[in-house]
């Protein structure tokens, strides 16, 4: 009786759909970024699970590693942009960002 690949993938699928839910509902830009982080983590779990349970290789681990680094870069730039926007209009809510509307 051991862990199967399906259970691991089901946990990852739950994380993925919750990330989609957060992205669709939240108003705060930082909360939307948290949803994006959940999506990336779900994908990484999938990579590592395929490596471990199906193929006995380490290429998926390398892909997950590169994903983690890219997530770090993305979060740094995105939070800098959010802080810059906040400095201009004193809010981080996405439906208040309408200064480009004609």
């Amino acid at each position: 009786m051991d862990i199967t690949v399906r259970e691991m993938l089901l946990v990852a699928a739950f994380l993925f759909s919750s990330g989609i839910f957060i992205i669709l509902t939240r108003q705060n830009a930082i909360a939307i970024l948290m949803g994006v982080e959940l999506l990336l983590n779900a994908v990484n779990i999938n990579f590592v699970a395929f490596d471990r349970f199906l193929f006995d290789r380490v290429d998926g681990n390398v892909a997950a590693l590169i994903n983690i680094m890219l997530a770090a870069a993305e979060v740094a730039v995105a939070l800098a942009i959010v802080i810059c926007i906040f400095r201009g209009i004193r809010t981080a809510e996405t439906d208040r960002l309408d200064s480009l509307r004609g």
Partner: protein
Amino acid sequence: MFFKFLFYLISAGIIGLTIVTAFSPNIIRSVFSLLGVMIGVACLYGIMGSQYLAVIQIMIYVGGIMVLFIFAVMFTSKIQDVQVTNRSLGKVQAGILSLAVFLMLAFVILYYPFPQETMGEHQSVERLGKVISTDYLPFLLGIGVILLASLVGAITIARPKKGED
């Protein structure tokens, strides 16, 4: 058997904390439960036998990204006003859509004929290091350049302009 029990425990924790992240009206509570989710994912990596990724997950996500999130939240939100820090709209439609995505993924996961599970040896740090430093060396160098460029760009964007305190 022990690992199975541990896996179920960690999965239950991850799912509960994800639900807190999705529904909490306070953004500080959302950020801290997301931190718990990241630690749980690192535990899942450990259970799957890739120790290096578990350590990297703890170092980068828990030590770096989540601290950055907490800083950004403290910069931009009025934390005392619990009701306005983390509003959410359209929960019903988004719930239907994400539930549909989950059901579709679960259908594929449960019925796809996966190949025979190998349960090979541990994905040891030694194997991973050999692969990284031979086959995937260009990717590693490229990711280093991207990380450097994005960090410099982030500092440039977030730095206050001259004359603005």
